[in-house]
């Protein structure tokens, strides 16, 4: 199992750290060098954490766990109107990104109100392409209880965020209701942390399920192969997004065949994955379990 962490520090021996990550079988997910400051998202085998920490101590930087890393989260609000955006929708998204998640934001077409609130099949399909969803449902207990029914049919883990601190519905995190100002105070940050923790717990359960029936190949390894075959264009960020059991890949028109034929071990990508066009963006690559494909190496 891979552990994903973030390193921040200076340029001193930065390359040595990167080499060490690769040497122990890890991956560099994201790297940023800003003059003398560096930032690195890295994934490495969990048992090698001590080696990495020792190196970071030697290099003189800081290392932080990213509990939501490797997951794509959808933040869903009843609409993209001024009642829900930018606060608290963007505050939640930003906080989750700081915990390592890749976030998307979505306003439902007919999500407002209580009795009239709806979610369409297409919206549901888009949400289910992600690893988890966070629904932000406002201040009123009665409305949240009614809207919670919309989420019940979802097949991905989800969290419902609302105002009243205690409502007896599953996956509920309270104390973040409708806001017109940025969540920046200490107690507000603590409330955001509760959302991230609840989401982290839901994702951890999903990770454990995947560990019990492991995938044919790690999404991290497939990303590495993808980047070699279809290198991202200069300046392009997140052309490939890692998910818990697959990837979202944005390829140029005409490159679809190349994508299917990428070699992973002794198989082609299309043999060990379901590849289909996303309802939202790019292509969804869903990796089969090893039990289905057999060993690929």
């Amino acid at each position: 199992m891979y552990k994903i962490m973030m390193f921040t520090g200076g340029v001193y021996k930065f390359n040595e750290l990167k080499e060490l990550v690769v040497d122990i079988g890890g991956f560099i997910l994201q790297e940023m060098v800003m003059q003398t400051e560096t930032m690195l998202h890295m994934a490495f085998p969990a048992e090698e954490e001590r080696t990495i920490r020792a190196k970071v101590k030697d290099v003189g930087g800081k290392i932080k766990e990213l509990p939501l890393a490797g997951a794509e989260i959808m933040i869903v609000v009843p609409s993209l109107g001024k009642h829900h955006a930018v606060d608290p929708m963007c505050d939640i998204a930003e906080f989750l990104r700081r915990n390592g998640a890749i976030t998307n934001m979505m306003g439902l077409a007919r999500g407002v109100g209580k009795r009239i609130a709806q979610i369409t099949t297409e919206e549901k399909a888009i949400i289910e392409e992600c690893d988890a969803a966070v629904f932000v449902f406002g201040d009123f207990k009665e409305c949240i209880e009614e809207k919670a029914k919309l989420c019940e049919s979802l097949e991905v883990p989800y969290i419902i965020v609302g105002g009243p601190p205690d409502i007896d519905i599953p996956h509920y995190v309270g104390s973040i209701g409708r806001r017109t100002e940025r969540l920046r105070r200490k107690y507000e940050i603590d409330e955001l942390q509760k959302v991230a923790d609840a989401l982290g717990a839901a994702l951890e359960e999903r990770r454990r399920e995947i560990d019990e029936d492991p995938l044919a190949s790690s999404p991290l390894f497939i990303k590495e192969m993808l980047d070699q075959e279809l290198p991202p264009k200069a300046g392009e960020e997140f052309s490939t997004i890692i998910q818990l059991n697959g990837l979202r890949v944005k390829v140029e028109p005409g490159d679809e065949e190349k994508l299917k034929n990428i070699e992973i071990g002794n198989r082609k990508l299309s043999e060990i994955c379901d590849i289909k066009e996303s309802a939202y963006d790019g292509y969804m690559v869903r990796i089969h379990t090893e039990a289905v494909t057999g060993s690929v190496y």
Partner: protein
Amino acid sequence: MEVKVEGGGEFSNAGYKKICQTIFRDTGLQSNIDSVYMYCNAAEHMFILSVKISRVSNPVKVGDMTVIGGADVIKVTNETYVPRLLTMLWDDYGDRVEQLSRLEIKVKLDSIEEMHKLMNRIVYDPREDLNIRILDGMDRVLPEGARVRYSVPFKGSVTIIASENPIKDEWKEKAKAILSSMNKGEA
């Protein structure tokens, strides 16, 4: 500005009180509103928002936001209404207006009397768009799903009943009761 929210539960009342305060502050209406009363009944999805209007600020004249800074030149002392001032000057004086710098505007006038006349011209009268700004603020406060609206007319205040369902007569009575208690200073 006094804000009172009732009927929505402890957390929702506190939340909407804060929302009313920030929205009316952001729309620049804080000094124009005497009191705000909101009644929330989320179980029936009915919301009543009543705003009692207090005094309206005086019109802003050219002399209130600028000073004479030499022959044919006015210097801006308050930039808030400069876009409106420039629009007014361009409309009235055309090519005779020249913006020398961020805070200096040259207007070629024939006499000093004309300059004094200019200084008394009204740039912005808050009364003009007060209703529009109040309605915009109320629209931002009321829940987005409550799209069926009914306004209760009363002198000196704006009251709106909002719901996702057809407006019932009993709600109208409730709104009228709120209005009368607001005007007696009870709500």
